[in-house]
């Protein structure tokens, strides 16, 4: 991990600066997280009337459940696909919208503001488009010989939730790629152009490396997004089905916690997820550090 060479002296001011964030973190994350850890070691009714310490029972049950283990693999696939799709599309669009063409302000606005579409409405839109009976797309697909029914075809269901989840995230990535591209001094790009580098070469040798901090940040955010914030979309479209084809880990936490009210199991899953997040970030930092990128 790279560090700044120049720094300010002293330690009181920085701690003061950090205080609000640390306080918020302690109150609204560490404390509830401790609660989750406590609950993950207990078995009790949802009302909190009776609770008994059961040690690691909840965890043992989790890891001996083949359905949970299958969900782990499925989640990895889902996160990879969503992140790749939304990052790739956003990067292409951002590079294009950053080029000196007429009407770019219009394109930028057109690509940013759909981010504001509320998740609930996004789900309705996707149902309107993809519903096997009332959707707009299935008739077109059937002309191509594709029988579209994501409620019974597990693969199609997965494609549906990946598309819907990636779609929602493209605008987000676009905004940051655009901001990243704009902070690259135009002089550097101009110099490369003078040297006769073509647009693709310019992109891979100059823009992409210079975007590395933005990309690194976005990869983290996109993995977190696809892993944790997609349950609303999945819940609205497939409820994790058919069978369990689209049941990702966070859908399961949400269902066990908020729908099934099994706080012990749901807390154990939360704890596993927290550990997963920490591991993932550690891994990512390691990787990026080895590559020598400034993260």
């Amino acid at each position, binding site marked *: 991990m790279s560090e700044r060479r120049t720094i300010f002296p002293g330690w009181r001011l920085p701690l003061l600066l950090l205080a609000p964030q640390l306080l918020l973190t302690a109150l609204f994350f560490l404390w509830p997280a401790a609660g989750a850890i406590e609950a993950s070691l207990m078995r009790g009714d949802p*009302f909190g009337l009776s609770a008994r310490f059961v040690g690691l029972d909840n965890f043992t049950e989790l890891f001996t459940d083949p359905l949970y283990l299958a969900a782990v693999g499925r989640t990895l696939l889902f996160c990879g696909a969503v992140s790749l799709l939304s990052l790739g599309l956003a990067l292409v669009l951002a590079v294009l919208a950053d080029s000196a063409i007429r009407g770019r302000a219009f394109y930028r606005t057109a690509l940013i503001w759909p981010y504001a579409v509320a998740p609930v409405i996004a789900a309705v839109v996707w149902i309107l488009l993809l519903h096997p009976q*009332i959707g707009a797309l299935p008739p077109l697909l059937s002309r191509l010989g594709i029988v579209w029914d994501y409620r019974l075809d597990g693969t199609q269901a997965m494609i549906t939730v990946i598309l819907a989840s990636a779609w929602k995230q493209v605008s987000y990535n676009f905004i940051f790629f655009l901001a990243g591209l704009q902070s690259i001094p135009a002089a550097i790009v101009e110099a490369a152009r003078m040297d006769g580098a073509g647009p693709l070469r310019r992109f891979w040798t100059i823009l992409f490396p210079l975007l590395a901090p933005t990309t690194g940040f976005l990869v983290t955010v996109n993995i977190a997004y696809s892993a944790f914030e997609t349950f609303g979309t999945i819940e609205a479209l497939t409820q994790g089905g058919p*069978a369990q084809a689209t049941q990702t880990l966070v859908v399961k936490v949400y269902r066990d916690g908020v729908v099934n009210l099994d706080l012990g199991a749901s807390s154990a899953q939360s704890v596993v997820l927290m550990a997963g997040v920490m591991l993932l970030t550690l891994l990512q930092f390691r990787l990026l550090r080895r590559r020598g990128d400034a993260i």
Partner: protein
Amino acid sequence: MNRRHLLAGAAALTAAAALPAAFAAPARAQDRPVVTFWHAMSGPLGEEVKKVCDAFNAAQSAVTVAPVFKGTYGETMTAAIAAFRAGQAPHLVQVFEVGTGSMLGAGPAVRQVWQLAQETGIAFDPAAYMPAVRSYYSLPDGSMAAMPFNSSTPVMWLNADLFERAGLDPAAPPATWQEVAAAADALKTKASAKVAMTTAWPTWVMMENFGALHDLPYATKANGFEGLDAELVFNAPPYVAQIQRLLDMAKAGTFTYGGRGAAGDQIFPVGETGLSFNSSAVRAAFSRDAKFRFAAALLPYDPSVRASPNNSIIGGASLWTMTAPRRTPAEYKAVADFLKFISQPDSDARWSKATGYVPVTLAGAGLSLAQGYYARTPGADIAIRQLNRGAVTENSKGLRLGRLPEIRTIIEEEFEAALQGRQGAQAALDSAVARGNKVLREFEKSMRG
């Protein structure tokens, strides 16, 4: 536990003081104590809940009942539980029928209706409520635990236009599953219906109600009414045959799976579906949206399983009274008054007519009949007739199983895997029973602390 109580106490103390002026509830005309009522009724149904509360508020001057929408049934229940744990439970909460098992295990968190009656002296006569409705929310000894509120039951909806095109008589709908299969075939071949038959709420309709209609046990211990140690038994041959029938029909293209829960709703109003199994309460929506003639019919049965069908079981929700620190007897009395009010025949009948739910009291149904409602709205009485078919038995009074929503999902998952051709009907139900029993054992353990 102690920490939680301390936290709850502190919360109750500071909650009132913490309300910033701009955010505080707007001043009411009268300074009456407020009874909070959390519900899950969205859209036009939410309007009707508000009307019921307004009527109560106008009819007496002691308290104001304030209805608050708290999301889906699941979210409402979670919100109520979270609030209870923080010592801020609402006075009343609407809980879906499948949450009944969990609420009964809530001990001091709730005041069951019979306890409320005892404490406040306001009596509720169980005999006033429709047997199939009341039984779902009663203890084995017959005393009521929750107040029936919005109840529906699945019925068979048919598209009359498509029926006629298929050479079928919509006035003589198929009564048995054999006739349904034949009708679906005709709908597909003769009327070229895009969807011959579909269903909303697959588990509720095709499993839970199938069991009730044919007097088949769903679980041991009287479907769970007589003990937490009940075991699921819905992998018995008649259930397997029913699932097999659906699988066969799906293969033949006469049954289209519409998805879990209410998802099947999305298909029928399009007008390309011949038969749809759905809640009786969707009548209002269908009337508004459908541009074709449609009708409701009794759920079909299988004469090879039982010569004549029994009553169907209900869906919907009931009202639970919740407790909180420092809640006064006067507040409980106000709650009881409100529950009494909504059980009055005129209130019940009005609610039923406005929403499409069945009246929960016999007098309410009688009043609707006397007012000529069922004569004016043919088919609106199908649900009531069906709920009163036969005599309520151990197998048709409902299900008393913990974490039933989860079990429903498990059945739907296994059914989906069977529809995909990955397993047979028997294997699907065996697997659902095994997974469901595991959930029941977990629930049992959690209740015993």
